[in-house]
């Protein structure tokens, strides 16, 4: 078994004072350190599993059959390692930009409730546009292609893309503004609120009638089950139809069933009337537009520009302003790249494994019916590689209170490429290749929505985020950060499927409990 690991220097730094000239600490000096925290970085290292092997077992399929995973290769090297083929040395942090582990409070962790201290792990943090993950990740999504590759040498391509998006949003805003210019947005809102009172009344009526229909249907089902096969000359009808004897049936069960059919029909009629009335309430017109249209327009405008506070509203918050802010970052990154700026190099990380797992064969027979066949063991090769991976600006704050372990976390991850393969000898044209991969995942906010981690009595893990409330909703929507996931371009087996994005995601409430599988 051979294994290669090289570690030239891992520096432990006492904080603060990272920029001061560094000297080795002796035991006495170390003894004087009082927990202000440590900073550390890894310099000029690489890791390569080489020909060593590792096996994971104990995992099962949904039927309880065992499977194994043999890890054949793993590496962590510096960017440019050609998927681990070269022993490029990597660097995690620098003396000026180290990982830090320390106890924080006050200005160092402004979201923490007053008087609370937290243990904070923070990754290297840069503020320049190319190494700040948020700014570069944002630019990379709009850029789409991997900068520096053939055909991708114009960083302003991202600027064109975000300008196009911004233009579309502003056009939507202008359409709504023009529609209600003579009305005024406060007047518009007032009319909506008045008309919504009727809608809410009728919604409640529809809910009541829906419940009544369900109740009547249940009664009809019960009585149908108890109804006789024959009532005199009348055979038991299909469900929902009545015995021909009406209210003069011989058996009480048949009469009761017929009655329940009548009741069900009556409830259906009442529901139809309630639905119709609700539809009419939504159709009430003011200023030439139905309530449905007015409410839609007002909501759309509010999302674009923030809730109007004047008859002629401004547009200084909302999605348009957010996009303008993003544009500033995109332009800054593009300009810096045009001026020859470069990024601090990231990591190349890779894992190759073979899965031996039970696999069930399905096939279609001559009649077009899909048949479930035998289950045999399949051996699958699987690889994951990350190129140019950085984790700049991420942090995890942990603290405890009477409700258990609390936290807030921000994952800021960017990679030039994520490559997933199922073949040993092949090219990227046979793999899944995601370029410009950016994860901006924010979970929890210490004051308004602390992330709670706990273990339940049965061993299940529980992760929860308390809900936004009426009392805190304004601060919540201003301060609890949103998350973003984007891929500049996804290529599957040589086919481009373009960009993919989940943008501006906020989890307003979460309760996640793990469960043993199979259930």
């Amino acid at each position, binding site marked *: 078994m051979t294994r290669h690991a090289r570690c030239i220097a891992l*520096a432990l730094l006492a904080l603060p004072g990272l920029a001061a000239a560094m000297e080795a600490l002796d035991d006495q000096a170390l003894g004087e350190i009082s927990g202000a925290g440590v900073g550390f970085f890894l310099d000029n290292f690489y890791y390569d599993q080489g020909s060593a092997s590792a096996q994971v077992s104990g995992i099962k399929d949904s039927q309880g059959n065992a499977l194994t995973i043999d890890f054949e290769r793993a590496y962590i090297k510096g960017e440019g390692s050609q998927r681990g083929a070269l022993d490029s040395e990597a660097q995690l942090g620098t003396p000026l930009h180290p990982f830090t582990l320390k106890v924080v409070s006050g200005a160092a962790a402004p979201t923490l409730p007053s008087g609370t201290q937290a243990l904070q792990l923070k990754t290297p943090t840069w503020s320049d546009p190319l190494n700040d993950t948020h700014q570069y990740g944002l630019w990379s999504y709009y850029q789409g292609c991997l900068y520096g590759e053939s055909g991708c040498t114009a960083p302003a391509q991202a600027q064109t893309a975000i300008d196009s998006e911004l233009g579309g949003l502003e056009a939507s805003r202008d359409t709504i503004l023009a529609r209600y210019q003579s009305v005024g947005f406060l007047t518009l809102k007032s009319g909506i609120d008045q008309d919504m009172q009727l809608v809410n009344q009728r919604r409640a009526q529809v809910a009541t009638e829906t419940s009544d229909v*369900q109740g009547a249907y249940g009664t009809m089902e019960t009585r149908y089950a108890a109804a006789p096969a024959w009532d005199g000359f009348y055979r038991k009808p299909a469900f929902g139809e009545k015995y021909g004897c009406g209210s003069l049936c011989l058996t009480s069960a048949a009469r009761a069933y017929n009655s329940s059919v009548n009741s069900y029909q009556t409830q259906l009629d009442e529901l139809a009337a309630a639905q119709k009335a609700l539809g009419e309430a939504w159709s009430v017109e003011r200023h030439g537009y139905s309530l449905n249209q007015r409410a839609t327009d007002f909501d759309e405008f509010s999302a674009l520009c923030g809730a109007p506070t004047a008859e002629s509203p401004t547009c200084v918050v909302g999605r348009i302003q957010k996009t303008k802010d993003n544009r500033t970052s995109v332009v800054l990154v593009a300009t810096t790249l045009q001026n020859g700026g470069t990024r601090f190099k990231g990591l190349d990380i890779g894992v190759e494994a073979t899965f031996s797992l039970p696999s069930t064969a399905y096939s279609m027979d001559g009649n077009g019916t899909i048949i479930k066949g035998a289950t045999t063991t399949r051996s699958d090769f699987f690889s994951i590689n990350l190129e140019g991976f950085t984790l700049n600006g991420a942090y995890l704050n942990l603290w405890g209170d009477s409700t258990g372990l609390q936290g807030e976390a921000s994952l800021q991850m960017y990679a030039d490429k994520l490559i997933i393969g199922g073949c040993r000898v092949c090219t990227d044209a046979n793999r899944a290749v995601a370029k410009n991969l950016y994860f901006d995942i924010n979970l929890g906010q210490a004051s308004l929505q602390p992330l709670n981690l706990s273990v339940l009595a049965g061993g299940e893990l529980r992760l929860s985020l308390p809900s936004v409330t009426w009392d805190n909703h304004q601060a919540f929507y201003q301060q609890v950060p949103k998350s973003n996931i984007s891929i500049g371009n*996804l290529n599957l087996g040589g086919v481009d499927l373009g960009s993919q994005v989940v943008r501006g995601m906020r989890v307003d409430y979460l309760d996640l409990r793990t469960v043993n599988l199979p259930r």
Partner: protein
Amino acid sequence: MGSICHSLKPVLTLLCGSLFVCAAQAELRPMADSELAEITGQALVTLDGLTYGGFEYTRVNLGADIDLLTNIDELRLGNYSRNQPNTVSNQPADIWIDNFALGRVDNANSAAAAVVPFQVRDPYLEFAFKTNGAGVREVAGIRLGFGRARGDLSGDIHSLTGVMQGLTTGSASTARDYYMQQNGLNGFTCTFNFNCLALSLAGNSEIYSEVQLVMAGTGDTTVDGQAINRATHIGVPNGSSFHTDNALLEPLLPAIASNNGDCMASGLSACFPLLNYKSIFVGDRTQADLDIGGAQGIFFSLQNQNVPWQDLAATNNQFIATQSGAFANFAKTGEGANAMYPFIVSLYEALNGAARVPTCVGDLSKGC
């Protein structure tokens, strides 16, 4: 790095080396039964393998129950240039939903505001592989799905590719009233209009129809035999009609309430902009128990060809055909009386559009 690195180098090299080497060379010993008995394990993850149609699949299942309320500014999948006969709009992406939300807020603009979460059970991630003509095993697709899901799904749906099957149901009288409104008829003139008269005769009989993603203007679900993509409308498919359980009325409906390729049924619009459906309810609104009321088989996928994904909602070994690009599956499960649709809208909603349920606390309905 200077002197500190030089002086720390031996120590740190040893430290790093010992970490790696110890992890690799520590002797592994089996645990005794008594030791194992003290451990409470969690089988959070299972892996499933299957093959079908030349594809190999590997699915990673996560055992979890998740309740959540989330608001997302924009969800856009498959954002690339596409110009095929079955591309039925000029939208830029296969799936594009703004102000996407899962869950809702009741009494949103009052102190009684209460979150009603969206429920998800057992999410999974699945890969599809296919060996190409040169014998190379390629990645063909990736999908994210849910064992069960139930709750309000909201958004401004600009474009959707995949399967979205719903049921629209309501009273014939609702259809008649809408028809009269659209055609400027009154109670008297209605009697001289065949469609209006037929709907009048139907009274309050319940009528219903399955709705699917369709091409605007025609109601086509396929073009040249290929399923449409980038749909902007949903409705009664071309050639389909409303139905009723009223045995007397049912034979009449195909004549008076069919979409014959003009997106009209009985003189009523039969195709509706997806943007009008601002909120739908996934699963059975009346069954709070996720085991019963949760919709099965919902997934989002990306694939480079027509990958058939296993239909986890089906009990008869079905696979769902997809097409290259991004794909969303909100298909019904079961057939006939046992069919459960991912969403059911009353006819008045289909005709007038489904209003968005509040997804934010306060006076913003969306965009919070």
